[in-house]
């Protein structure tokens, strides 16, 4: 134990504030950024930042949400096909029922929350494995989205059409220059959710579920309630991600979305969320998503297309998981 204390003291203040993994991930981000900038001239343009942001919003939102089930030692696989389903239903309300965009957003959020709640209640009440339950809802929402849209693409307001104000939630055009103001909302949400995770009862109980669910139950805490809360949060953010996706890309193809959840989950894990639950941070998740988004937008610039992105993302994930395991072994020993 004496050695432990010394080791803790020796740690720099940087790693103490942010955690070792987060510092390493920041390093990776810097290296990736430098690498792409040096390797490709076109990467160094401002538009790259805009593209990066476009890709990052919905992945980040999903990732913030899914961090909560992950911390309970669960997972939510339904968010990827979920955001497609929810935004298609939203588009139906807007373009087929001719309702205002705001109503479409409310419907999108309501549906996302409903599925979050369903996931939570099935997992917590019936004590089923989260992986299986959310795998099933993933398939259900994928089918549902296609059926509700009648197989047609969902369309959200384009630039210039009525209701196009929704597009300027995430970027505004200031004198020919596009400014990704969505980042402001992202930072705001990161701060709020970090606060929820670290400073509130909800966050404490969600972390406690991942640490030792049975001990928490035997401490007289209603575990079902807080487990449902974790999936509700995940659903809520899937809803936000659906809106971000719709507002950014306007066109939504039914039946897609499978695999997007893996970008989000991968981001959370790269950011230091433990797959066995009990620890994780929203800021870490943000960094992890930044890595994934950088790879997504950067690799094409150096001539590596989608398949290579998959391979490299996979390798990065293995690295992140290895770090997590080493940490755990050290803690155990």
């Amino acid at each position, binding site marked *: *134990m004496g050695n*432990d*204390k010394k080791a803790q003291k020796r740690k720099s203040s940087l790693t103490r504030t942010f955690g070792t993994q987060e510092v390493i991930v920041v390093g990776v981000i810097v290296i990736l950024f430098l690498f792409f900038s040096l390797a490709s001239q076109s990467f160094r343009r401002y538009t790259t930042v805009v593209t990066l942001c476009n890709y990052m919003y919905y992945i980040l939102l999903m990732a913030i949400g899914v961090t909560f089930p992950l911390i309970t030692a669960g997972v939510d696989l339904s968010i990827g096909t979920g955001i497609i389903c929810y935004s298609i239903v939203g588009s139906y309300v807007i373009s087929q029922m001719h309702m205002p965009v705001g109503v479409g957003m409310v419907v999108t959020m309501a549906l996302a929350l409903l599925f979050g709640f369903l996931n939570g209640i099935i997992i917590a009440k019936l004590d089923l494995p989260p992986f299986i339950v959310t795998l099933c809802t993933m398939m259900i929402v994928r089918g549902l989205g296609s059926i509700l849209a009648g197989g047609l693409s969902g369309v959200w307001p384009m630039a210039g059409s009525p209701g196009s104000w929704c597009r300027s939630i995430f970027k505004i055009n200031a004198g020919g220059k596009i400014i990704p103001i969505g980042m402001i909302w992202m930072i705001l949400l990161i701060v709020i959710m970090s606060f929820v995770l670290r*400073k*509130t*009862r*909800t966050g*404490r*109980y969600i*972390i*406690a579920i991942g*640490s*030792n669910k*049975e*001990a*928490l*139950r*035997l*401490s*007289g*805490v*209603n575990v079902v309630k807080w487990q449902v809360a974790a999936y509700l949060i995940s659903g809520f953010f899937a809803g936000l991600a659906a809106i971000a996706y719709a507002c950014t890309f306007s066109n939504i193809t039914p039946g897609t979305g499978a695999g997007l959840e893996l970008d989000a989950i991968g981001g959370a894990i790269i950011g230091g969320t433990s797959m066995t639950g*009990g*620890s994780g941070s929203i800021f870490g998740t943000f960094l992890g998503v930044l890595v994934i988004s950088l790879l997504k937008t950067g690799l094409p610039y150096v001539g590596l297309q989608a398949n290579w992105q998959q391979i490299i993302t996979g390798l990065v994930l293995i690295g992140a998981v290895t770090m997590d395991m080493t940490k755990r072994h050290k*803690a*155990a020993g």
Partner: protein
Amino acid sequence: MGDIILTMKGIDKTFPGVHALDHVDLEIRRGEVLALVGENGAGKSTLMKVLTGIYKKDSGTITYEGHPVEFNNPREAQDAGIVIVHQELNMIGHLTVAQNIFIGREPRNGPFIDDAKMNADAEKLFQELNIEIDPKETMSRLTVGRQQMCEIAKAISHRAKIIVFDEPSAALTDAEIAQLFKIIRDLRKKQLGIVYISHRMDEINQITDRVTVMRDGHNVGTMLTSKSSKEDIINRMVGRVIYENPKAQSNVKPDAPTVLKVEHLNAGRMVQDVSFELHKGEILGFAGLMGAGRTETARALFGADPKQSGEITINGKKVDIRSPEQAVRAGLSYLSEDRKRFGLMLKKSIAENSTITCLPKYCRGPFIDKHREREVSRKYVEELKTKTPSIDQMVINLSGGNQQKVIIGKWLIGDADIMIFDEPTRGIDVGAKQEIYELMNRLVSQGKSIIMISSELTEILRMSDRILVMCEGRITGELDIKDATQTKIMYFATQRA
């Protein structure tokens, strides 16, 4: 009487904080059943684990068929012909009987497993043992008793010369026990050496030839079964020595009100019609052997496991407890015997563990008041003398005794009035044990009431004001502390229905 097949001499084994085996000698003979008896923790299982290579001995020698041997793992022991049939069976439920018996050494036909030969070999084994089991049956469809027979068949297939049975009858019906004994007698006739670990006196009389009694890591005597009485064996098991001063009389005031009344509690096979009362300021000891149903009773009472029936009255009011949440609200707390699994968030700080039973009290709206949380956590670390560099220490880094204090602290912060301590000092070293005892005495003097489940008789006699003894899910005896002796408790603890 057969000749000696195996001798263990001066076997010594120490675990951190426990001298599990203290220079133990043991002899196993051909064609003989040796009973190995003793209280929980006396060292029987440890000795057998040393014999079969699961544990490494610190010192001592094992001589097998005239040669010194040293097994590094169970596999080596098995290859040499020494096999243990565990209490918990090691069978794979999905596979067939024959697949289980020959697992890891399946007969081959080229690259393929020769199923026909495997089944035929298994059939032959069963014939040898006079058992009728279909080798092609799926293991999980057999009763526990028949699964155990498959274990025995597997042991025989290893050309075992010594078979150790570790409490084989614990999960068996009477008919299955009878069949087991028939098999054991057959094996004895075939000149195998057999060790039979059990708590059950009547079985020892029926099946064994000699008895070796263990207590506190010592071999305290070996005698012929036919020449020793049940009382004789029990007395040796518990010892006549008084280790620590037992409590002379109850400290509970005669007019102390009843704080908890449990009537006709039923929960599965392990809790049958349990009724008792707990008084204010009392330490009520629950004694019994392992598997007597004490933990199950506590968990059913606490709402951790479902119960079929039973009425619970706390401070004169009937309460409906169906979850730990309701139990905590009613003023109950449960300190599990398995602290790491059921008591603590190991990788969280002392502070975070401290307030988990009553977090709303340390919140302002939805927000945790970290200042007050730390304050109360620090207060209890000081009050309970928890040894830790700080309240931010992860509890995984604390010793067993200090972990227990963190758990006690969290229930005190939660303001529980009735505390169920399940094996409060298991895995805790002697010094910390003393502190936990003092703490429990202080708690009852402050008006808390305690139910203490313990398998250590000395602990029961030292701490309890009154003792309930359980056996096979029922309360078989109640003793006031001034009448209680180890022998009396053991008598009730082995009182099968």
